[in-house]
């Protein structure tokens, strides 16, 4: 089976793009990725696009066909992948598999979401489509509500304080201060987090990722095709796992089993463990999600994630810098997020990130769908 490499990457600014439609955003990201690779549209053999809910956000289904149509890439095969907020990483994994199958040499994996065409409460309800409509949405739960339930359970079980939890957004805002693609470039303090309005107790506004429009794309190549390009970033491992759709059906509220299983698979494939990861992008849709990710990915033992935060081990300069581009707090166009995370790791391994980790050779991405019913973990290496 061939190895797979990322040979090009492109991302739109993460923002409220009132002047652009979804098709404009995905084309923009795709063109940037092709330019970066030094390729042309005619070189692309297939496209996979992650998108959570264009049907409810903009009333548009059949998104993959629209994407290749608008990019002038017809008649290549185009496939939409959906796993809520993990749709982007899912598209990436499907594109990798398509190349590994031997069917293609050059494939685009993209992600896109247009979330600001509808009003805020409708967006909240649409996002909650990732949960159990009959038994979670129907009682008035929201996504931040689900993560708040995890937060309360975790704080109670392991003694994490509200101040310690605030270190997650504080660190990520600091990391993303100079990120030109971020929706916000602003340093915040623990006090700012604690003073921001409560959204779902104990989570506050600055614990939450925003509503964002954006698209991201990467070009993937088989080993024989990738050899012709500068700085290919190799996919060393890919893991995906599932759990119960509803949070209430899980045995534990303080870990994501799907992320644990997916990461174990990815580490196994890559032939390395969490101690060998130089930089990681984790799915911090809400502050607690980053805390759980540290433990689910093996960066910390269960209940000990707080130590990484207190000792700045996941900050730039620390043992394992996490979310060097600012993470999801600085923009979360749900279907695009998984690809956006991969792009940051690609930049890090090429040595061209805005907030560069010195000599980064291996990187990891962790993309979660819903409250943890889907998780994907990818591991990358510069060799």
């Amino acid at each position: 089976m061939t190895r797979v490499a990322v040979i090009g990457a492109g991302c739109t600014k993460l923002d409220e793009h009132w002047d652009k439609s979804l098709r404009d955003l995905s084309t923009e990201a795709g063109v940037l990725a092709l330019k970066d690779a030094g390729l042309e549209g005619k070189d692309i053999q297939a496209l996979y696009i992650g998108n959570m809910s264009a049907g409810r956000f903009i009333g548009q289904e059949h998104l993959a066909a629209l994407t290749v149509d608008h990019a002038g890439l017809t008649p290549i095969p185009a496939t939409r992948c959906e796993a809520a907020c993990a749709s982007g990483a899912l598209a990436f994994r499907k594109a990798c598999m398509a190349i590994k199958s031997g069917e293609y040499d050059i494939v685009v994996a993209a992600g896109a979401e247009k979330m600001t065409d509808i009003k805020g409460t409708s967006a909240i309800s649409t996002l909650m489509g990732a949960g159990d409509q009959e038994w979670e949405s129907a009682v008035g739960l929201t996504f931040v509500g689900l993560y708040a339930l995890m937060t309360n359970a975790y704080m109670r079980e392991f003694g994490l304080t509200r101040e310690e939890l605030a270190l997650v957004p504080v660190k990520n805002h600091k990391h993303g201060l100079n990120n030109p693609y971020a929706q916000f470039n602003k340093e915040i303090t623990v006090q700012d987090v604690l003073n921001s309005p409560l959204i779902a107790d104990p989570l506050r506004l600055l614990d939450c990722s925003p509503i964002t429009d954006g698209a991201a794309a990467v070009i993937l190549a088989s080993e024989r095709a990738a050899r012709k390009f500068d700085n290919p970033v190799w996919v060393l491992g890919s893991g995906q796992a599932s759990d119960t759709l509803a949070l209430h059906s899980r045995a534990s509220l303080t870990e994501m089993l799907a992320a644990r299983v997916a990461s174990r698979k990815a580490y196994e494939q890559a032939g390395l463990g969490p101690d060998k990861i130089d930089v990681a992008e984790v799915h911090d849709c809400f502050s607690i999600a980053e805390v759980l990710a540290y433990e689910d990915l093996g960066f910390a033992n269960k209940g000990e994630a707080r130590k990484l935060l207190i000792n700045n081990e996941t900050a730039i300069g620390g043992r394992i810098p996490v979310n060097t581009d600012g993470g999801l707090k600085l923009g979360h166009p749900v279907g695009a997020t998984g690809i956006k995370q991969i792009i940051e790791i690609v930049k890090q391994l090429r040595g061209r990130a805005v907030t560069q980790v010195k000599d980064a050779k291996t990187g990891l991405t962790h993309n979660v769908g819903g409250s943890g019913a889907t998780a994907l973990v990818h591991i990358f290496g510069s060799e």
Partner: protein
Amino acid sequence: MVHSSIPLFWRLRKAKYRLEGTKCRKCKSVFFPPRSFCSRCRRKGEIECFPFSGKGTIISYTIIRTPPEGFEKQSPYAVAIVKLDEGAQISGQVIGDLKEVETGKRVSAVFRKMYEDGPQGVINYGLKFALTG
């Protein structure tokens, strides 16, 4: 809102009005929300109707202050994950004083108005929980 469809509401009436869940005769797993297929035994399972008492314990909770569509008038409101005494876990609103809601407290299911489907729409009823001490 998909969850306010009338056929859906009719389909779930036994679960929502009478707390009817299910149980697998083979492995003794109990399910609420009800499952028509045992997720442990799969095809070998034998699912039967199983009534729940509605009594349980809060294992985590939150106060929703930014509500989704249809719940705007009730906000802020408490939602908890309740471990039912018979064994399954379910999400539900907890009525009463928000300050009284805490992990570990005992609750009992009650039948209440859930949300309105617009000014001319259907009023949906369902399960909520009341603190019992």
